[in-house]
């Protein structure tokens, strides 16, 4: 992030949720994002895992940033992130085995989610623990927001349901394509398009 980024609590919130939303402005962290968006429940659980990991790793990196030698800081950050992901993995396996099964390798892949690494590097390295914690929560929430929008449309079109409850009438023919990978790319493309267009209008108006 640039140095001019707002450092106030409210500023960070709007910035992370909208102006530099990790997904549609920075196109980060979509690796593990797209695969889980065909069902709302999975998306929700996955996003909560990402919020927890981003928040805690940002907090930890910020606390111990003075102790990490600059040369090995990437490695240390990866280890911190991996530590929290293991917690998420164990909790999921213990309490929600079905969802753990459905998410498969994508829980482990939270480690290589560029958002978490990016926030640790760009924000936690130069800010206090409290603000870093808040930054972690908000930027992961920005990620969650976009994912939930994609998952909403994909689940309703692919299965006619929301959170597993059937809400479409019986005559509704499910669109199989929506459950398949290409539709995730199309939806993300469209969301980026809408987001950027609104952003361009805002800029033109300002």
């Amino acid at each position, binding site marked *: 992030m640039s140095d001019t980024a707002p450092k106030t609590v409210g500023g960070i919130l709007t910035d992370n949720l909208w102006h530099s939303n990790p997904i549609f402005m920075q196109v980060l962290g979509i690796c593990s994002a797209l695969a889980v968006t065909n069902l709302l429940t999975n998306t929700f659980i996955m996003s909560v895992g990402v919020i927890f990991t981003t928040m805690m790793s940002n907090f930890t990196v910020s606390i111990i940033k003075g102790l990490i030698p600059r040369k090995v800081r990437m490695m240390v950050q990866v280890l911190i992130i991996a530590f929290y992901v293991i917690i998420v993995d164990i909790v999921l396996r213990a309490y929600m085995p079905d969802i753990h099964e459905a998410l498969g390798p994508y829980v482990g892949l939270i480690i290589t989610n560029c958002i978490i690494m990016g926030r640790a590097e760009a924000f936690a390295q130069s800010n206090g623990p409290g603000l870093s914690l808040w930054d972690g929560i908000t930027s992961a929430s920005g990620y969650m927001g976009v994912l939930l929008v994609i998952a909403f449309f994909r689940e309703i079109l692919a299965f006619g349901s929301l959170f597993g409850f059937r809400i479409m009438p019986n005559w509704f023919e499910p669109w199989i394509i929506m459950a398949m990978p290409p539709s995730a790319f199309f939806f993300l493309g469209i969301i980026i398009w809408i987001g950027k267009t609104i952003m*361009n209008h805002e800029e033109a108006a300002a």
Partner: protein
Amino acid sequence: MNAPDIGLFSLFFASIFTSNILLANFLGMCSFIAISKDLKSSNGLGLAVTVVLTVTGAANWLILHYILIPYDLIYLRFIIFILVIAAMVQILEMVIDRVSQKLYITLGIFLPLITVNCAILGVSLFIEIREYNFVQTVIYSLGSGLGWWLAIVALAAIRNKTEKTKTVPAGLQGSGLTMITIGLMALAFIGFSGMLSVQ
């Protein structure tokens, strides 16, 4: 251990085309989007990813089956895998530096970037979940690497043309159009899945 019953040949082709690591499993997207602006870099990165994937896939399989499972340390696998990947990338960098200066210059900055490429970790995790045996692991890793390479070179070539057109709406330019292009590519690749798949 009961390895899935799948022919090596079909596993190889399925991992390149129908279950392409990038287009069907969405792995390695970050560097994919960032690097695919340039055809030459895409080629270099594709080669590097293929090499690292094959080596780390095999190394992680050996560690998983000879260290983590016997000593009941399986919950540490995320940390171990990522460390192995980082170490392999480092070793590979040194080896290439010694053996072929030309290749070293071509791969240059891409090698360190590979550590945080989700495709590498993803393949190691898929291998663990699907319980492949060693030969299948090597074939699957190599195929996934080649599939990733193919996808990034193809996208770079397409982007080369689309970036030049002026008829695209302002909001759609850049990443938006790239996502839709990838979606169309994914459709084409998945079109093969009636023939074989490894899910």
